[in-house]
């Protein structure tokens, strides 16, 4: 297995505060990879660095061997990384379908003029985008709500819609920022199945941040534990779960997390 995402020596400062420190790791292609750690340990910052929202003070980020460090977020997305957010960022007054179609914008070829004149080429492309988007909604069980305004969806559906939107950009690497946050046990179960299904059906590598130990232990094939911006353990979930340093950092200070 080759590394799809490779992070080399990444360091990031906020003002004088070191948020991430000399961080290096590889995410192999095709796995479900988990990043865990106590609050404030630099997990979301890592995602923000990978997706170009912040520029790392130091270090390199490679996607499939290609340097994407310091590129604008939309370019990074176009080169194959999709993500969701910890606190949902849905296009809430647009329809569910349009949430997906918006993420397909960058693949549309029709220019302004042909769009405005609604030429046959444009109409054909619109039809194709619509079909693709509906298929995606079908897979994520959202098709029957396609025409509803996104804001009218229940919370669990919104989480799925955000994953669908990330998939609509056709990523090779899917970053999920606490996908199980705020879910009940039943929804968590469904989510775990969904993530595995998404990985298999869309042939994506999944890299997720999660507090929910059950999710991490249940579906992640590799886990990395972060504290104060540095790695304290890495490996298979069952090994990491027994690591003394992890237990101290994660469970010892916070009490039982799950």
């Amino acid at each position, binding site marked *: 297995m080759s590394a799809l995402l490779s992070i080399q020596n990444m360091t990031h400062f906020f003002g004088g505060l070191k948020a991430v420190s000399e961080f290096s790791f590889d995410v192999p292609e095709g796995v479900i990879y988990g990043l865990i750690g106590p609050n404030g340990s630099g997990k979301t910052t890592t995602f923000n660095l990978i*997706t170009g*929202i912040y520029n790392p003070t130091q270090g390199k980020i490679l996607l499939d061997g290609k340097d994407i460090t310091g590129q*604008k*977020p*939309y370019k990074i*997305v*176009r080169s194959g990384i*999709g*993500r969701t*957010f910890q606190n949902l*960022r*849905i*296009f*809430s*007054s*647009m*329809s569910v379908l*349009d949430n997906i*179609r*918006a*993420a*397909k*914008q*960058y693949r*549309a070829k*029709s220019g*302004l003029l042909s*769009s*405005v*004149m*609604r030429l046959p080429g*444009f109409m054909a*492309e*619109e039809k194709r*985008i619509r079909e693709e988007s509906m298929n995606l909604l079908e897979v994520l069980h959202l098709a029957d709500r396609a*025409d509803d*305004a996104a804001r009218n969806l229940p919370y669990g559906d919104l989480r799925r819609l955000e994953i669908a*939107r*990330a998939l*609509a*950009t056709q990523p090779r690497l899917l970053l999920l920022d606490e996908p199980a946050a705020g879910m009940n046990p039943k929804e968590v179960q469904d989510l775990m199945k969904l993530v595995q299904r998404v990985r298999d059906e869309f042939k994506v590598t999944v890299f997720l941040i999660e507090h929910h130990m059950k999710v991490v232990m249940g579906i992640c094939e590799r886990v990395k534990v972060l504290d104060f911006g540095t790695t304290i353990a890495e490996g298979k979930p069952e090994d990491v779960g027994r690591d003394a340093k992890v237990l101290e950092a994660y469970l010892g200070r916070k009490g039982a997390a799950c």
Partner: protein
Amino acid sequence: MEYKPVLQTLKRIGSWIVFPLLSVGDIVGRKTGRNMPRLTLAALGIYLYIYVLGSTGVFNGYVMHIINLSLIYVALAASLNLINGITGQFSLGHMGFAAVGAYVSGTFTTLLFKLNPSVPGAYLVFVGAIVAGGVAAALMGVLIGFPSLRLKGDYLAIVTLGFGEIIRTILNNISYVGGPRGLLGIPKFSNFTIIFAAAFLTILVIRNLVHSSHGRAFLAIRENELAAELAGIDTTRYKVLSFAIGAGFAGVAGGLFAHLLQMAHPTQYGFMGSVMVLIMVYAGGVGSLTGSIIAAFSLTFLSEGLRGVLDGLGELTNLPLGDLRMVIYALLLILIMLFRTEGLMGNKESKLLMLPEDKR
């Protein structure tokens, strides 16, 4: 006034022109599954209807003038709606773009017709001048779009306001275009036909744009800029594009305005002018073109009506009641914000301005 014959004429013209066109549009629309034929033929019907009423004298010159003004405001409000309502930016200097269009096209035609009063193809030259004014305004839109890349909400409002004021100050100080006296002696080329065409084109282009990948990029930026960027949308490009297109149409409207009033004056394009357009957008509904059309017409007619009433009362009582008009506008704006923040139409559209497959 004998309104019975007027009413009869209205009815007769309606049944001869508008209804056949509408039914043809309906049939073609149903056959092709598209809304464009319906929309175009409905617009043609409305155009012919007003045109016939105007040329037969049922609507006198004054009414036609107010209709022309309303249509110019339709273009201004719709183009501002693209920037503020659809893309979610906040421009307070929209009349600055209109000023660019008015002065560029006005200077051009004034100069040309001063040199040679019988220019061949005069009307085409005028249309060219209007387009040139629109292009100049669009370039200005690109320029002012750049600050929008780093600024949001209220800060952007102040910068665009500052931009409008800078334009006004510059115009005030260029004696070549009349300085504070304004640009006078612009030939009267604007008529109902071209103004209607421009307003319709503005609405059509923005409507079609909204229902395309480009339009979904605009909307996504309004909804959540960061998420839009992470959906692969080049937010920088689309924000500037929104300003450019909105400014371009405002420039065209400004050019038509100048050739309707036969003059352009810096104060017409100041902050208060921009606020008037803003009121139309927010009264009609943010993001709703239908709302912009309704608001542009009703507020222009209200404004003219109030002008007549208040000036009459003012003359009788010898009081400066003309300013009460603006008081009423200000109150209207405050009341809309306090009690119906989303405007008359919210972000709903008339069926004609939507796509048949979009149910919302």
